[in-house]
């Protein structure tokens, strides 16, 4: 489009400015995180003359980020594994096996997608307290599984529905139980979807703050995101340490993003295409 050459640049410049506005906050924060307290107070904008790891150390040890990090890691790992196991079983059954009420059941799962957490959080907290699961790892893990299961089932079912049903029929004739078909055929076949959906589920759980605040009131069980909010009060006079804490919490997400960027995009659009 030769006639469009000029207008393309007219568009590209504001887009570049927006890209800069997306990158700059990170540079600003990273720059603060490596400054000494004194340099920060003197001039927060100037590029730091030295890379100072003290702030990272402060946030990690005395700020408690180390403990929060372990909490998040344990909870997110357990929740994602459970989500993938339960979600792939249900997704397989709903997309490949016809049984009485299977259509209704699928619609029921779809409807569950539209129940936001805010709507059920009060009675859920009460029920969890009644059974002694408030402020425990299993309690928060279960809450995450319940929250992201409809989404996981939906994406797994739409992935499995592309696999011809003849495969299941043949395996059944060979004498496999339904569970055997799942274990030996569907689980291995589902690996690409399990990976993409697992990454998304992990991001959702890692990034959550509301569910964690509700289910984990005590400070030693805080997840990383809740930890950030408390760090803010703790280091209101030591912004460099706070900035370092923020970067620690964002680090794993940045790493996952850089490695799996394309996969994350595909998983999101897989959901939208069917919607």
């Amino acid at each position: 489009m030769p006639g469009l050459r000029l207008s393309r640049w007219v568009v590209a410049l504001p887009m570049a400015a927006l890209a800069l506005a997306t990158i700059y906050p990170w540079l600003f924060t990273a720059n603060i995180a490596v400054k000494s307290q004194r340099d920060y107070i003197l001039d927060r904008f100037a590029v730091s003359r030295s890379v100072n790891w003290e702030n990272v150390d402060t946030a990690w040890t005395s700020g408690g980020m180390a403990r929060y990090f372990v909490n998040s890691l344990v909870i997110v790992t357990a929740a994602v594994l459970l989500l993938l196991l339960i979600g792939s079983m249900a997704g397989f059954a709903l997309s490949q096996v016809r049984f009485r009420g299977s259509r209704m059941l699928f619609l029921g799962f779809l409807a569950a997608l539209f129940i936001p957490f805010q709507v059920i959080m009060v009675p859920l907290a009460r029920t969890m307290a009644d059974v002694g699961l408030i402020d425990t790892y299993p309690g928060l893990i279960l809450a995450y599984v319940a929250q992201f299961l409809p989404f996981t089932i939906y994406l797994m079912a739409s992935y499995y529905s592309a696999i011809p049903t003849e495969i299941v029929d043949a395996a059944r004739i060979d004498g496999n139980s339904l569970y055997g078909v799942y274990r030996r055929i569907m689980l291995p076949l589902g690996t690409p979807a399990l990976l993409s959906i697992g990454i998304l589920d992990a991001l959702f759980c890692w990034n959550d703050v509301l569910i964690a605040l509700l289910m984990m009131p005590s400070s030693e069980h805080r997840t990383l995101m809740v930890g950030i909010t408390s760090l803010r009060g703790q280091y209101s006079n030591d912004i460099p340490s706070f900035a370092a804490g923020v970067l620690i919490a964002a680090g794993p997400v940045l790493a996952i993003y850089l490695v799996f960027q394309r996969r994350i995009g595909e998983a999101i659009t897989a959901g939208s295409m069917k919607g």
Partner: protein
Amino acid sequence: MLVAPAVVILVVLRLWPLLLGVNFSFTGDGDRNGAAVGLGNYVELLHDPLFRTALRNVGILVLLLPVAVAIPGLLATFIFLRVPGHQFFRSVYFFPAVLSPVIIGAIFNLLLAVDGPLNTVLGSVGLEPVDWLGDSRIAIFTVVAVHIWATFGMALVVFLSGFATLDQTLLDAARVDGASTPQVIWHVIIPGLSRTIQFVFVTTMIGMLTSMFGLLFVMTSGGPGGSTYLPEYYIWIQQGQMNRPALASAASTVLFLIMLAVGLAQIALLRRGTREE
């Protein structure tokens, strides 16, 4: 059975709490714990200035919804039309969408401080500094703007996948006929993407109603003067801080009805869309 674990979890931890919550919203708090109070909680909600502000802010979100959809839509169009650097833009724009609102909020607290970078930039071109989060007339717009900044990458990716389904021959034909870029956008791209646009409208609205808690919690705590309350923040405060779970349940039910209205509007739009085709 293979679906049994999923069914048990969803019935016990989602469906049951939903019914319990609606039931709960008709009972009292504190001394009147468990006693039936009819619509008492709902009447109290209507008279609570904080909840009214929360509803007014939902109105502001609805008004800003077209902006929140148009920004990623336009950017996706330009990326699709292969503006110079489009691949770079795509990956940079998407990054904030995978981050927690808590992290975004924490960083923007630093950026939007009265003596922070944004006001420094404004000052360098001779403008007065703005109290982005401390002025009750501005704060809600600031938070919504940060939310849009943080999430437009998600909608952008959805739009781009919609573009992949567009009929390329139609686009080529329009160009051969000498259509300008705005004409191509208006007459070819928008009609061809109607389903994607609807999908983005609904998911963006749901996102605004249910995923701004982290930003509010970190950036404003509902303030100044309660001006940045949203229903989800109100529910959290009444449940977690004020020990008014029944009142919080009533607010939850109202939020659920709002979400239901959004869902039904979506279905109605889809019906109309298919009839036209």
